[in-house]
């Protein structure tokens, strides 16, 4: 037995999402199977790998060399696993290596050697290696400054492609079509990148990716090949990806596979890695683009697409096992050497937050901007693609006809086809392969056939279903209800067949529980589970802002609890980036749409005891009414209460009737003509949304009118209570009792979305009297709404008044945080209540641990977004830190998302001397930089200060504190793009600086 340290990837951000919880967890599982002691370093509190009962020891700390060093000595670590936590883990490991930490403590790096990983990451070394193998690599040159650019005659023609030498997710990448553009691009990014690579822009080339495993005995296998529907120029994370490759013949496929193997052998890679190629569609000549010598987003996708547990096998290869010794996990008679063979098509579609931030499609390119992705499976491309389009929920509002790459180009292509643009014309513009375009055309032709038909008969329904059309679409076209179409097709026995993903295309019998629906099939691959003995759990779908790893965590805990209480678990989800869609996490996994149609199809086939919808973020509650109407047994609080809580007007009426105070509110429609009579500021709160889309604070009637202009009209306008403390109250209740609860206090004041707030629990600024008052109000709500199971209430406290803002009859995003902080199984308790099973009473333990949850923002990636905190949620992830001291927890948490733990030089922008005075900067030995007239206040306070006009190329300070009412969006963005952390909330700034001061003492 050895002690092995697994490096995690930290908070969810653009480019690093739940796929690294999947890979980390499989790695831990593999290490435990081989009898090792596992230590995990990951501050991501919503990750399953940081659960107390999974690894042996968990450090909720920043993934940094200093933590690694501390853990190595404290835990007596023998080996470290660095390839399972994304670029964050890899970069940390390279740093440790460069500092000699691994060498000093004699820690063995499992898998590929660090030297070879560094070679794979370094452009020049890698290009040389590729050429040594007689493969082509694109022309490139590296520049370190603008003089280089002027000196070097670029050895190729425009357009060129620019990217940073070592970066994740294509940061600093872009296409430059002329010298001026190139010069400006380089000027911008050289300010904070050490060097840039300029290379051939492979316009119109096909882009494919190969996922490879290699063992120490030099056996190589190719798990999956994937082809991007979008040609080169769009980041793979932002491309529509199809598995397996579709338009590549076997000769070329074998050449690419051989090339991938040759590179793996040359780099002596051990474990998993992927290679990206660009192919000239005219000649089939290819170039090697890059390798990732670690588990990646693509490997998670490949793992889900093929039903092959890539990370689990990879970790065993890192431990020294050979592929020949390992077995296929779906059929123990088969060898793990077998490359998966698919008899279906997978389509991955990225999920962008274009609607949230811009209300329209955004241009996409070499820098990744998507937040999440969905994967759809079908036995024809049309079937998979239509499912995928519905899963990702592309809105057709503001659809533009632009056919150049943007976030909703697929819809624009379909729309152009409907208008008569030919496949050849579309190919000319987009370079998308004729085959893909032809398949999209088939979807349009199917729509047209439905539109043309006068009668809806079984033949037409079957044809439409085979090409992936939904009941709802057919219903709309024939002016029927979805349920009408459903009963029509059921009358003609047109139902989906349950197909299995078995990695062998049916050639061998396997016991796979990994399932999808297809209408292109004759029979079911599995028999239904025993009736009334299974529970169907609805998942949360693709990551998006406001719905991320935390709901996967809730689902995973629920799946375990379902089994614990003797039921079989059936899980419905469609996100390839998560552990929850690993087939060994549930008794049956349906990789399908989160829709009424699919839930009813599954319920018809499996006859579960009931359905749990409360762990899926907002997905389940939005379906609650329809499920109720369809007669589905939903476990938990009754739908009527869910409807009250989901509708703000009904909810306020309810609060009023039970005597709970809430902010004054007005219905916009009734108010429209008398906007001047309203007392400002107000906050707009639309119903049924997660993470506050369209929610905002308005200070005047003009602002209100403008905001409503692009929001929903049927929303409520609340009085905005300035400077109030916000509280998250999470609890579990049964029989009018709250059996467990936790209270979290927000550091930022009301008006900042709860998902973007820094939370502390137990509360630091509310007395016990107020806390028991909160519990009393919660009990009143539990009683009056007959809440059964898990719920969340948001309170606002202003002097002695306690307001209720909202109540969510579902698990909230704070559940993983408080579950781990308080060691209370909130999910298990809630599941027991749903299943009417006995549960253990909680011991009344008072713990001294203080937890702080800190949001992670990805503003650097989200081009042109306003980084000022508001009522619209924008953070992509979160971390937490636990300590006996509030200050330590706050600083540790903030450091894990990139804030400094020691301040040398800070830049301050503030509006007035009172604000500056309250910050207490004088207590810290820190030099202050000013870029505007804040210098005046600072000199009045006799603080050590320098003035630097804000046109310098590179800001040279550790932190920007921007507390101006003018928001300074442009300046903040410039600083953020250089990777410098920014605090723009007054309360957070105060607490942070105070905590820093205390820790120093």
């Amino acid at each position, binding site marked *: 037995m050895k002690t092995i340290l697994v490096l995690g990837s930290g908070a969810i951000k653009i480019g690093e999402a739940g796929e690294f919880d999947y890979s980390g967890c499989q790695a831990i599982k593999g290490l435990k199977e081989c009898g090792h002691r596992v230590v995990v370093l990951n501050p991501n509190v919503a990750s399953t790998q940081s659960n107390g009962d999974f690894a042996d020891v968990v450090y909720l700390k920043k993934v940094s060399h200093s933590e690694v060093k501390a853990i190595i000595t404290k835990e007596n670590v023998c080996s470290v696993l660095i390839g399972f936590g994304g670029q964050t883990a890899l970069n940390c490991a390279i740093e440790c290596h460069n500092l000699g930490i691994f060498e000093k403590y004699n820690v063995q790096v499992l898998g590929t050697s660090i030297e070879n990983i560094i070679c794979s990451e370094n452009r020049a070394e890698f290009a040389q290696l590729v050429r040594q193998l007689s493969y082509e690599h694109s022309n490139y040159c590296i520049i370190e400054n603008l003089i280089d650019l002027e000196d070097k005659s670029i050895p190729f023609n425009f357009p060129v492609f620019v990217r940073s030498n070592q970066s994740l997710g294509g940061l600093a990448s872009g296409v430059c079509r002329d010298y001026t553009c190139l010069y400006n691009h380089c000027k911008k990014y050289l300010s904070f990148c050490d060097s840039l690579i300029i290379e051939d822009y492979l316009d119109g080339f096909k882009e494919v990716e190969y996922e490879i495993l290699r063992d120490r*005995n*030099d*056996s*190589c*296998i*190719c798990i999956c090949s994937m082809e991007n529907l979008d040609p080169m120029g769009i980041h793979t994370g932002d491309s529509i990806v199809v598995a*397996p*490759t*579709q*338009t*590549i*013949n*076997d*000769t070329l*496929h*074998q050449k690419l*596979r*051989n090339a991938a*193997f040759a590179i793996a052998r040359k780099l002596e890679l051990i474990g998993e890695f992927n290679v990206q190629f660009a192919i000239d*569609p005219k000649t089939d000549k290819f170039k090697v683009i890059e390798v990732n010598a670690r588990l990646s987003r693509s490997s998670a996708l490949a793992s889900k697409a093929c039903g092959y547990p890539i990370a689990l096998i990879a970790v065993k290869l890192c431990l020294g096992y*050979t*592929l*020949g010794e390992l077995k296929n996990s779906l059929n123990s*008679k*088969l*060898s793990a*050497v*077998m*490359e*998966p*063979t*698919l*008899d*279906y*098509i997978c389509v991955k579609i990225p999920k962008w937050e274009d609607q949230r931030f811009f209300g329209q499609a955004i241009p996409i390119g070499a820098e990744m901007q998507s937040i999440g992705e969905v994967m759809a499976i079908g*036995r*024809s*491309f049309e079937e998979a693609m239509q499912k995928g389009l519905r899963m990702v929920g592309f809105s057709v509002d503001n659809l533009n006809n632009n056919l150049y790459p943007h976030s909703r180009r697929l819809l624009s292509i379909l729309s152009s086809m409907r208008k008569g643009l030919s*496949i050849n014309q579309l*190919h000319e513009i987009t370079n998308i*392969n*004729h*085959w893909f*375009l*032809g*398949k999209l*055309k*088939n979807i349009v032709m199917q729509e047209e056939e439905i539109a043309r038909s006068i009668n809806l008969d079984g033949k037409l329904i079957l044809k439409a279903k085979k090409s992936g059309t939904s009941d709802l679409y057919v219903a709309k076209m024939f002016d029927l209800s979805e349920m009408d179409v459903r009963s029509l097709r059921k009358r003609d026995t047109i139902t989906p*067949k349950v*197909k299995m993903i078995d990695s*062998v*295309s*049916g*050639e*061998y019998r396997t016991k796979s529980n990994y399932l999808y629906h297809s209408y*292109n*099939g*004759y*029979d079911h*691959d599995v028999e239904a589970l025993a009736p009334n003995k299974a529970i169907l759990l609805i998942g949360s779908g693709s990551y998006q802002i406001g719905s991320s790893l935390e709901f996967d965590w809730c689902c995973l805990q629920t799946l375990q609890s379902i089994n614990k209480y003797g039921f079989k678990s059936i899980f419905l989800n469609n996100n390839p980036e998560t552990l929850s869609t690993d087939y060994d996490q549930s008794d049956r996994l349906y990789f399908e749409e989160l829709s009424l149609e699919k839930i009813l199809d599954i319920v018809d086939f499996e006859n579960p005891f009931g359905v749990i919808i409360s762990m899926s973020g907002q997905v389940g509650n939005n379906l609650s009414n329809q499920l109720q109407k369809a007669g589905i047994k939903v476990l938990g609080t009754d739908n009527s209460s869910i409807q009250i809580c989901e509708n703000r007007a009904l909810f306020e009426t309810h609060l009023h009737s039970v005597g709970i105070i809430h902010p004054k509110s007005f219905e916009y429609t009734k108010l429209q003509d008398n906007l001047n009579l309203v007392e400002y500021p107000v906050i707009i709160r639309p119903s049924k949304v997660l993470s506050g889309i369209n929610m905002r604070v308005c200070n005047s009637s003009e602002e209100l009118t403008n905001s409503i202009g692009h929001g929903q009209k049927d929303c409520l306008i609340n009085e905005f209570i300035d400077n109030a403390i916000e509280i998250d109250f999470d609890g579990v209740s049964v029989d009018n009792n709250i059996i467990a609860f936790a209270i979290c206090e927000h550091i930022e004041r009301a008006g900042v979305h709860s998902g973007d707030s820094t939370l502390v629990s137990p509360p630091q600024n509310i007395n016990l009297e107020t806390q028991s008052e909160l519990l009393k109000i919660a009990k009143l709500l539990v009683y009056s709404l007959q809440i059964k199971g898990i719920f969340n209430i948001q309170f606002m406290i202003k002097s002695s008044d306690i307001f209720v803002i909202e109540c969510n009859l579902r698990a909230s995003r704070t559940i993983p945080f408080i579950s781990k902080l308080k060691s209370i199984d909130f999910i298990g308790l809630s599941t027991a209540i749903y299943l009417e099973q006995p549960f253990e009473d909680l011991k009344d333990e008072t713990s001294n641990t203080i937890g702080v949850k800190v949001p992670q923002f990805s503003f650097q990636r989200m081009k042109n977004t306003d980084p000022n905190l508001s009522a619209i949620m924008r953070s992509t992830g979160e971390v937490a830190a636990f300590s006996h001291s509030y200050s330590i927890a706050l600083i540790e948490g903030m450091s894990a998302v990139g804030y400094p733990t020691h301040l040398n030089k800070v830049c301050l922008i503030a509006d007035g001397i009172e604000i500056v005075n309250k910050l207490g900067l004088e207590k810290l030995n820190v030099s202050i930089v000013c870029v505007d007239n804040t210098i005046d206040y600072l000199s009045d306070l006799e603080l050590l200060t320098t003035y630097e006009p804000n046109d310098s190329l590179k800001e040279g300070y550790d932190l920007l504190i921007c507390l101006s009412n003018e928001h300074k969006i442009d300046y903040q963005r410039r600083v953020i793009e250089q990777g410098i952390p920014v605090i723009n909330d007054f309360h957070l700034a105060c607490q942070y600086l105070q905590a820093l001061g205390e820790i120093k003492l």
Partner: protein
Amino acid sequence: MQDRWLILSDGTKFKGHAIGSDNFKSGELAFHTGMSGYMESITDPSYKGQSLCFTYPSIGNYGVDLKYDNLQSKTPSISALIICDSSDYYGDNSEALSLDQYLKNQNIAGISGIDTRALVKLQSNDPPLIARLSDSSSFNINKSQRFESPVSGVHRFSKSRSGKDLPWILVIDCGCKQGIIDLVLLCDVNVITIDHRLNYHEIKDRLESYQAIVISNGPGNPKSYSVLIDMLKISLNQQIPIFGVCLGHQVLALAAGAETELLEHAHRSHNQPIIDLKTNRCYNSSQNHSYAVSKDSISKDWKVWFENLNDGSIEGLSHKNNIFKSVQFHPEGCSGPQDLAGVITDFINEATRL
């Protein structure tokens, strides 16, 4: 699209769409689970007389380019093609034909719209299912009719040169894939291909002028290649290096006194996992066979070279004198992995160096 029926010898019938011609022929149902290389498989002579079914649902994605595609014989010898989804639109290559048009030109019948996964689950090796296409659902296969896989009708006696004064390699053609010949020609040799039905006496005068013999793949039961087996029995006593591929491996083993048997589970895919027992390295291999050399029938002079990691069956043999070798898999891929293409080229290079 015109309806068409797939009718099986167990009485099952499936409705699909017509592709290709209406030249309906009965044939043993053979499936392939590879995801790439439909043209290589369609033109693979080993599928002669069989109804070929692809489990991968989308076939014909890049069309058929007769100049460019890696065809394994000039004309396909399958009796029918069974697929799930064919495409009217294919690739960006304007020279290419659609798969449908190609089948029509070659007078081969096909059907699309079939749940090929369901079909694979039905298939059995012994007795094999017979499939036939029809435009009428009332057609039935006469069960009493016997469908022996025909021994190759491929006639070849042809030379391929890569240069003057280079050594000659004899390829005995039992239905040889072009890929094997291409692989041999990668070495500095000339190739002469002969029909497997030529007996020893017909070729013995010329035998000495060959540096090595390669016995190709081919359809059917290896025991039915009696003329070839007799010829090999004599050759094994001479010192001409011999290499067998697939069926060639089986007949070589038979000539050396071993036995062959029907596998419980045929190997017809690109992902057959094998291990090289000399190096313990593992590979994926392209395979297409239902017979295998029986494990306990090998004489002491022979050693198992490669083994299947799933069922433990023999995937390669080598004689202790190292000049007779054979592999059950297809080193040339075509379609499928070419991880072990070196076993043929190494052998030829070794043989010509002697």
